[in-house]
C-alpha cells in the first residue's frame, strides 16, 4: 500500500473512532432524492403546517419563504417538496436555484422541463438552451427524390442553441403538457433569489407577476428584510403566504444535532434528548455549548460541526468533551476567515466589528466610520452583509435598526483567556 492509502485508512479510522460512519455536517442541504434530508431536517413545524394547509386546496398559491442568509430556506423548500413527492405523487415538483442572468419564466421552464424526461417537447426546450438532456436530440430533415427509382434520404444535425423568445408562453405550454400527466398540478420552487441584487429581484418579480399568477404553484426564497418588505408592499397580493424563517431555539438546535449525529452513528440510534447516548460522540455539556455557539443558524451549525468533528478526528479522540470542543471552535475561526477570502476592506470592517462589538446604523458615530475610511453606514453595509454570508458576523434581530455583531467563537469552558 502507498502512503496515501495509509493516510486514507487512518482518516476513515479516526472518524470511526468517534463512532461515526462519516462526518454528517454539510453546508448545502442534501438532494431531494436523498433519504438523509428526512433524518436531519428538524423543527419548523408551524411553518410546514402553514404551507401544507395551503396544499389541501385546489387553488394554486404562491409562497414566499424569507429569512437571513444561512437560516435554512433551501432546506425548508426541499423538505416541502420531498414530502409532496411522497404524499402527492400526482403533483409534479420542480426545484431550481436561480441561475445568473436568467428571468423567472425561463428559470421555471428549465426546472419543469428537467422533471419531464419523457416529454420530447420539454427536452427540446432544454436542448435548445444548451442544457444536457437524457438523449441527444437531432433536427431531422427528409428529402424525397423522384427519379427512376423512388428514394428517400434522412439527415440529422445538431439543433441550434437558442433561448426561448417568449419564455412565459413556452412555460405556459409546458405546464399544459405537464398537467396532462400530473392532474393535481405543478409546484415550482425557485431558490436563491436572495443571492441576486435586490433591485434586480424587485424588477424580476414585477415582470413575472402574470406568470406567478398562472397555472403553477410557486415557492420562492427571498431577501431577509428590505427587499422582502418592499415586495410585500409594492406587489401586494402577489403572495398568498409569506413565511419568515427565524433562528432555531436551543432545544430545537439540540434536537437537530441529535438527528445529524444519528444519521451517521454506527452503533446506536438513540434520539431521546434526556439520554446522553443521543449526542455521542459529544458529551451532553459539549453538545449544549456547541448549540449555543451555533446561534440556531443551520449553516453556521453545519460549518462549525464539520470543523469540530474534523478536529476531534485528527486528535484521535473517541469523545468530544468541552476541551475537545474548545479546540474545534478555536480551529473554526481562522477556517471561516480563510474560506471567506475577505478583501482588505472587508477584513478591516471585520476587525473593527470584533474589536467594537455590536454596531448599528443608529449607534455608529461619524468618527467610527472615518476610522474605517467611510462617511456613511450605507457604504459599509455591503461589507457587513458579506461578513454575515461568511458566518463572520450576524445580524441582530432589531427591526428599527440595522445592527450587526461578531460571531463569538470562544473557548468552550477552559482557556477563557485565549484570544480567538
Amino acid at each position, binding site marked *: 500500500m502507498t502512503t496515501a492509502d495509509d493516510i486514507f485508512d487512518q482518516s476513515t479510522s479516526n472518524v470511526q473512532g468517534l463512532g461515526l460512519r462519516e462526518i454528517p455536517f454539510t453546508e448545502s442541504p442534501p438532494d431531494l432524492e436523498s433519504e438523509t434530508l428526512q433524518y436531519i431536517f428538524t423543527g419548523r413545524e408551524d411553518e410546514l403546517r402553514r404551507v401544507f394547509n395551503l396544499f389541501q386546496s385546489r387553488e394554486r398559491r404562491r409562497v414566499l419563504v424569507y429569512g437571513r442568509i444561512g437560516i435554512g430556506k433551501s432546506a425548508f423548500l426541499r423538505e416541502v417538496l420531498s414530502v409532496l413527492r411522497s404524499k402527492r405523487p400526482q403533483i409534479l415538483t420542480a426545484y431550481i436555484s436561480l441561475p445568473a442572468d436568467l428571468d423567472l419564466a425561463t428559470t421555471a421552464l428549465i426546472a419543469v422541463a428537467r422533471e419531464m424526461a419523457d416529454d420530447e417537447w420539454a427536452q427540446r426546450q432544454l436542448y435548445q438552451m444548451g442544457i444536457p438532456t437524457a438523449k441527444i436530440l437531432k433536427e431531422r430533415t427528409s428529402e424525397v427524390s423522384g427519379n427512376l427509382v423512388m428514394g428517400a434520404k434522412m439527415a440529422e444535425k445538431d439543433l441550434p442553441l437558442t433561448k426561448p423568445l417568449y419564455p412565459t408562453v413556452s412555460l405556459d405550454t409546458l405546464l399544459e403538457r405537464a398537467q396532462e400527466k400530473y392532474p393535481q398540478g405543478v409546484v415550482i420552487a425557485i431558490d436563491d433569489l436572495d443571492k441576486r441584487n435586490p433591485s434586480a429581484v424587485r424588477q424580476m418579480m414585477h415582470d413575472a407577476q402574470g406568470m406567478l399568477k398562472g397555472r403553477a404553484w410557486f415557492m420562492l426564497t427571498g431577501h431577509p428584510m*428590505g427587499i422582502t418588505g418592499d415586495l410585500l408592499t409594492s406587489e401586494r397580493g402577489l403572495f398568498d403566504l409569506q413565511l419568515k424563517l427565524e433562528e432555531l431555539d436551543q432545544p430545537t438546535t439540540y434536537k437537530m444535532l441529535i438527528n445529524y449525529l444519528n444519521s451517521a452513528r454506527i452503533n446506536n440510534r438513540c434520539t431521546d434528548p434526556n439520554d446522553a447516548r443521543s449526542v455521542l460522540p459529544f458529551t451532553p455539556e459539549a453538545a449544549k455549548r456547541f448549540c449555543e455557539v451555533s446561534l440556531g443558524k443551520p449553516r453556521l451549525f453545519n460549518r462549525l460541526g464539520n470543523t469540530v468533528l474534523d478536529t476531534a478526528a485528527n486528535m484521535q479522540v473517541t469523545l468530544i468533551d468541552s476541551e475537545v470542543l474548545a479546540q474545534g471552535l478555536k480551529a473554526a475561526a481562522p477556517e471561516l476567515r480563510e474560506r471567506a477570502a475577505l478583501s482588505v476592506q472587508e477584513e478591516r470592517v471585520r476587525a473593527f466589528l470584533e474589536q467594537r462589538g455590536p454596531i448599528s446604523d443608529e449607534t455608529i458615530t461619524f468618527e467610527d466610520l472615518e476610522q474605517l475610511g467611510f462617511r*456613511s453606514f450605507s457604504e459599509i453595509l455591503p461589507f457587513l452583509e458579506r461578513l454575515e454570508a461568511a458566518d463572520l458576523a450576524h445580524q441582530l434581530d432589531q*427591526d428599527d435598526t440595522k445592527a450587526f455583531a461578531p460571531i463569538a467563537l470562544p473557548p468552550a469552558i477552559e482557556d477563557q483567556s485565549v484570544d480567538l
Partner: protein
Amino acid sequence: MPGSPDFIDSQYRLGNALSRRFELNQNASDLQDALKAYKTALDAISPEHYDREKIWQALPTTQSVLGSRLVREGQWQEGLQLLLNSVRLLSEGDDHLAHANALYQTGRAHETLSDWDNARLYYRDALRLYEHLNDQPGIAQSRHGLGSVLASQGYFKKGMAQLQQARDLYQQLDRQNRVREVDTLYQAAQRAEQQLSEVPA
C-alpha cells in the same frame, strides 16, 4: 473644436447655465441637458487638468438633484439609480455637504417608494453627516424624514422624539411652514399610538 480647452470650458458653462435655468423654471429636461454637458466636458478633459475636479463635482450634484426630481415625477427606478450613483461619486470627493444632501435625497426617494428600511438607513446617514458639518437645516430635515419613517413603521415613540427635535430646529430657523408640517405628522403619530394602546391585547 471638440477636445480643445474652449470646447471643454463651453460645455462646463453650458452645464452651469442649464442648472441655473432649472432653478428658475424647474424644468427637468434642463437638468438632463446639464448632465450631458458636464459628461461631455469630463470625457474631453485630461485626468490631470486642474479644472477636472470642478466639473467632476458638478456632475454628481446635478445627478442628485435630477434623481430626486425624477423620483417625485414617478420615474422611480431611473431617479433612484441617479441618486445612488451620485451618492457613490460624492462619497469619494471632498464636498461633504453635497454628499449629505445626496444621502438625504436618497432617503426621500426610498420613502417615496415605501422602502422604509432603506429610507431610514439613508436618513440616518444624512443626519450623521449634517451633524458632523453642524448644518442646522440639514439636521432638521433629516430628523423630520427619519421621524416620519419611524412613525410609518409603527415605532411611534422613536419617531415622535425625532419629530420633536426637528420641530424645535425649524422653530429656531423660523421655518413656520415646516413647523406646521411636523406638527401635523406628530399629531397623527400620537393619535395612532393612542389607538394602538387602546386595542386590547
